[in-house]
């Protein structure tokens, strides 16, 4: 192996699949081989059967839909407010000086620790779930966007000024397009984190959603369903990640050329 040397797309895909195969193989050996008790870990076939039963008999699709809705709802609400604020902070230093210390502090506050408070304030309805996602995503997005905008090459800004740009036009025509790919990349990362918050929010005080199903299955010691739930989250995460990457590639061809 040579450092940083790229591999062919086919070989790359093959290697990626190979690890999944290896993972399932080890799991099968551990469960079918009797190395781990069925009570603690279901085997892959049981998991698949349970998964089918979840969709066919227990209306799991509705839970999945609700969880996706909560993640996207909270995430989009956070992004709609956080992206403009991040841009303002990245572009204008006084605004950054005003908000940055608080946002840096707030981003270390664990969103999951707010759940008891949020239940108190917002009940156990949808608003509480959305707020958990919102708190978990908002501060992260603000800071990452501010850093991306602030990292705009100063020589590009200078070039724009010598071409007759005003300050507002520099923000609109240089800072924004220059930071756009990094902003999109930040959103992709934060969306991934939002998924972990939603499950935690659903573990406590929820009557629907993937997280709720997982808590229910725990009570029944149904490890097959728990694992299936976790895998579903992983698959949805993977799909949203691909969708984001694909969109970014389409939106910003100049960054990838």
């Amino acid at each position, binding site marked *: 192996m040579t450092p940083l040397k790229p591999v062919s797309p086919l070989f790359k895909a093959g290697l990626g699949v190979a690890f999944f195969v290896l993972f399932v193989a080890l799991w099968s050996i551990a469960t079918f081989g009797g190395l781990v008790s069925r009570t603690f870990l279901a085997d892959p076939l049981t998991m698949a059967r349970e998964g089918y039963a979840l969709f066919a008999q227990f209306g799991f699709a509705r839970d999945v839909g609700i969880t996706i809705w909560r993640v996207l709802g909270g995430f989009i609400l956070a992004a709609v407010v956080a992206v403009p604020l991040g841009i303002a902070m990245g572009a204008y230093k006084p605004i950054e000086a005003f908000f940055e210390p608080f946002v840096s502090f707030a981003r270390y506050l664990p969103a999951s620790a707010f759940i008891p408070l949020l239940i108190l304030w917002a009940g156990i309805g949808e608003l509480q779930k959305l707020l958990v996602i919102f708190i978990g995503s908002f501060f992260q997005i603000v800071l990452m966007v501010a850093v991306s905008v602030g990292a705009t*090459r100063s*020589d590009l800004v200078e070039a724009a000024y010598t071409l007759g740009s005003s300050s507002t036009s520099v923000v609109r025509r240089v800072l924004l397009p220059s930071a756009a790919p990094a902003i999109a990349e930040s959103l992709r990362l934060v969306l991934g984190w939002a998924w972990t918050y939603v499950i935690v929010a659903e573990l406590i005080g929820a009557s629907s959603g993937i997280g709720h199903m997982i808590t229910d299955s725990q009570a029944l010691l149904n490890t097959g369903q728990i694992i299936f739930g976790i895998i579903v989250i992983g698959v949805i995460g993977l799909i949203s990640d691909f969708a984001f990457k694909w969109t970014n590639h389409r939106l910003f061809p100049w960054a990838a050329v």
Partner: protein
Amino acid sequence: MSEVAIEGVGRTFAGVRGGEPTVALLPTSLVVGDNDFITVLGPSGCGKSTLLRIVAGLDTPTTGRVLMDGVPVAGPGVERGMVFQSYTLFPWLTVDENIRFGLREKGLPQPQQDEIAAHYIAKVGLRGFERHYPKMLSGGMQQRTAIARALANDPRILLMDEPFGALDNQTRGLMQELLLAIWETDRKTVLFVTHDIDEAIFMANRVVVMTARPGRIKTDATVGLPHPRHYTIKTSPEFSALKARLTEDIRTEALKVATA
């Protein structure tokens, strides 16, 4: 009529962490006349780029002022176009869109933009590359686009900060010929900073040599070579004589830096 008058412009940078302030440029005066092509020649760190940035309005002088047609310069402006040493094309815009950047800023109507962009794309030999992004272009092509972008704005003076410094020797030679040809047809006023003696003489009608840091003007030599100039002029006796003289001037300055 004088276009740009640099009057006693000096620049001192504040010391870092309580250190001594650095005098980058001693008060310098220079008058750039209409249609002049002046090259500013000096060793690295002599403040020649600082001087150019002050003329561009990207830096403010500690002493003195720059006058543009008698009006003091207070910041960057469209009448002073600039080409930088680093590649400063906007990576998210195509060649064509980069060249239109200033035209859109001015709010020119689309047909007029089309006409101007096409004219300068042809002028710098980039036909067929209009839809290319900067990343897809060689360094020489990027700098040609940058020149076209600056010229499309029709500035009164073109400021160039070692624009060919990062290019290989052959490309650099071709770029000099291209720029010289543009100047010979358009007679755009140019202030060009470089540390390359051949480059300084080949294109200019005046070469200003600066001293080592802190910089000031040491020599102001007129280049009497006739136009249009062909690249073979670089081997003519007149060229060599001037080169020998300027080499001696700049060598003493470089030595000061090396032994300081």
